[in-house]
């Protein structure tokens, strides 16, 4: 399994995302924002950070990077794509996922270990979880409030496209406590919390996040 991990100027979590891929017995392939091809990878992770300094809006400039044009095309053909934190913001700006991420409702940057409920276990990235399972992974973001219009929210809720939901206090004002969503096909997933920081109890709160990368392994092997 070869998984591309994109680095934009300002990306922070590419190294941990690459490590998570290796923990799932995959080969991590670094992709640069200026690349015009995906180097034959089976899947792509858009990691967290502050691409282009979060100028204009989070993800708004990264969405037009050359490598993202390749990612958009591949995702629309069914390639598994995961956006974590800033990566989720990039995928929303790129219209691969509906809605937008906005400033946390209480304005504070939130950095804490966060319980999430797994609600969709049929996406390319979540088959290793039990439906309804609760997992503990870090959340660290200042603009994680998920916003979408009523029609979009209904579409997401009615079709099981809410993949992760915050358990307990809503950390950022996200509509319906939404932490992560998928596209209609289930190959593109975005979430604000960081599964790649929770793959080994030695370096994270749990290893609950590793399931996302093992799920991808199953998806790629089956394909």
């Amino acid at each position, binding site marked *: 399994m070869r998984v591309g991990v994109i680095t934009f100027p300002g990306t922070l979590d590419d190294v941990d995302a690459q490590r998570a891929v290796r923990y799932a017995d995959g080969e991590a392939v670094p992709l640069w924002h200026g690349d015009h091809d995906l180097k034959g990878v089976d899947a792509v992770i858009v990691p967290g950070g502050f691409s282009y300094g979060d100028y*204009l*809006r989070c993800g708004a400039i990264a969405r037009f990077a050359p490598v993202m044009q390749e990612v958009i095309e591949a995702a629309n053909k069914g390639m598994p794509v995961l956006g974590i934190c800033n990566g989720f913001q990039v995928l929303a*700006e790129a219209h691969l996922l509906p*809605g937008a991420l906005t*400033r946390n409702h209480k304005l504070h940057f939130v950095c804490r270990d966060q319980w999430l409920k797994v609600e969709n276990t049929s996406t390319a990235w979540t088959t290793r979880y039990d439906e309804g399972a609760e997992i503990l992974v870090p959340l660290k973001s200042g603009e994680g*409030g998920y*916003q979408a219009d009523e029609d979009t929210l209904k579409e997401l809720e009615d079709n099981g496209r809410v993949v992760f939901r915050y358990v307990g206090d809503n950390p950022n*004002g996200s509509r319906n406590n939404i932490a992560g969503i998928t596209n209609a096909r289930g190959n593109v997933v975005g979430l604000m919390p960081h599964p790649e920081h929770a793959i080994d109890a030695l370096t994270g709160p749990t290893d609950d996040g590793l399931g996302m990368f093992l799920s991808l392994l199953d998806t790629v092997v089956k394909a």
Partner: protein
Amino acid sequence: MARVVVDVMPKPEILDPQGQAVANALPRLGFDGVTAVRQGKHFELEVADDVDDATLAKIAETFLANPVIEDWTVRRVEA
């Protein structure tokens, strides 16, 4: 050359915590009577004369604003 102003504002139904924080600060600073504040963005573009309105509209809609959460206006002004 022409000057073009693009104003981008959060949609009315979108929570604007930054605007609220500004509004909440005003009474503490001794300024009474301001009942609400919404915070947006103001862009000033210097554009060549052959850039048409359709192009300006596209710049605003696809890049300067996010139509999911923001409204925008485009106007040409005297430089």
